[in-house]
């Protein structure tokens, strides 16, 4: 049977969208693993119903594997789960009112579960992160310099990096590249030519926009919940 990953993020408390995605996935052929790459919570909606559902899925639903995202990080920082840190990034970018809204949108009974979530997953040769291994807020897009993207892949020692922070859906393949390196030290000189390995960074989208990844063929599909999927992008 085809093995597929469904990668979703940025639900921000939207249980209706989550149910729509679950409905979609029931119709999607293959053996599907559901990954939720963070931002399950947000300041605009009460998130308790969604969190409850993620923790206790219905018997006929896919059980999600979740990591924390930028919004969870802000909440955990503000509620003392990150030592002396507070939600300063949120405070600076969105203001005190949004910090208060975030605190009121998640019942404190969910904090321990949120704090228990991992930073990311490494499955096969793929990294599944909210931002990147450098930072949960690392906003990678198709416009990010390739050198930066290559660095994020190298840090994690993976060939594919699935990222959610930008909310964009994109597939960027590092096709080819080369660099000359010459080192001079007390042992003498040595030259080396290094080539860019064939790697890719995939933006999985947010909310209704999610991504299907076919593990066997390396194909990526961008999907909007409730609609037909985009054309399959061949793996490289």
């Amino acid at each position, binding site marked *: 049977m085809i093995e597929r990953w469904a990668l979703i993020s940025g639900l921000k408390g939207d249980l209706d969208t989550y149910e729509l995605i679950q409905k979609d996935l029931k119709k999607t052929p293959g053996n599907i693993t559901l990954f939720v790459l963070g931002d399950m919570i947000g300041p605009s909606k009460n998130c308790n119903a969604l969190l409850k559902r993620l923790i206790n899925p219905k018997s006929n639903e896919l059980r999600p594997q979740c990591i924390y995202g930028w919004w969870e990080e802000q909440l955990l920082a503000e509620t003392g789960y990150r030592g002396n840190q507070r939600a300063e990034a949120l405070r600076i970018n969105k203001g005190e009112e949004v910090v208060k809204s975030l605190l009121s949108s998640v019942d404190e009974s969910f904090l321990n579960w949120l704090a228990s979530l991992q930073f990311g997953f490494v499955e096969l040769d793929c990294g599944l992160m909210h931002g990147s*291994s*450098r930072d949960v807020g690392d906003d990678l897009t*198709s416009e990010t*310099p*390739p*050198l*930066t993207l*290559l*660095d994020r892949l*190298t*840090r994690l020692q993976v060939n594919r990096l699935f990222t959610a922070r930008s909310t*964009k*859906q*994109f*597939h*960027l*393949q*590092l*096709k*080819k*590249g*080369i*660099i*000359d*390196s*010459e*080192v*001079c*030290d*007390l042992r003498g000189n040595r030259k*080396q030519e*290094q080539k*860019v390995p064939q790697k890719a960074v995939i933006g999985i*989208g947010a909310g209704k*926009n999610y991504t299907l990844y076919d593990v066997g063929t390396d194909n990526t599909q*961008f999907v909007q919940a409730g609609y037909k999927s*985009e054309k399959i*992008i061949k793996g*490289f």
Partner: protein
Amino acid sequence: MKQAVISCLHANLPAVEAVLKDIELQGITNITCLGDLVGYGPQPNEVIELIRDKRISTCQGCWDEDVVDGLDACDCSYPSQLAEKRGHIAHQWTTDQLTKENKDFLAKLPYSIRKDKCLFVHGSPNSQHEYLLPDMDAFAALERVETARAETLFCGHTHQPYIRELANGSIAVKVKNADSKDIQEKEMDLPMRRIVNAGSVGEPRHGGTKATYVVYDENTNEVKIREVEYDVELTCKAIIKAGLPQIFAWRLRNGFEFAEQAEDASHVCER
């Protein structure tokens, strides 16, 4: 105009004095220090005071940071638990020895110093604890220099002096955005950049006993690695007398500094 770049002095006063003398003999007055004034060695106060007296432009090293803020390095800082234990003994000894005035001096050191197109840091632009080893992934090395918006990055921390030139680079990408039907193909040239590691004055790890530093000629853009002999025995005796781990003296005397070398050259510190 020439300038000297020194790093990783590690409280080794005879080595620091010998290197400063060597710099003076060349008529160089512009000196930049990349930190780690303390740690391992027996004369932390004396070395700090010498650097302060000479008003040498200095950025903060990982030891300088840890002595002020407490130990918080990631696993990459030591190659073994034994080495880590020794490091912690030296950390505690140094913390106990330093005067308040000298601790305040270390606390106020900047993370980096920028001079025109050159950036001076201890480890990397990301962290004082990150090793930029001479054979690390070339693209990752270039990313460190480019992200820091420098043409030449001067660093230390590895205790191995080297000059690395990264040139003739290019990357081609193929991009598909979900909101567009087009597949874009782009190829871009990468800039030529250089990393210069000043090695270590007080605790060399190049397989020999000589202190190392580098001289940068701004006119010719050339960098030369300098090796300087100093009275190693004097430092070794002071290490033993201070009650620091004797292995620190043994390594200096024999040039066996590989004992403290980071094991994984490809490691990219995420601290």
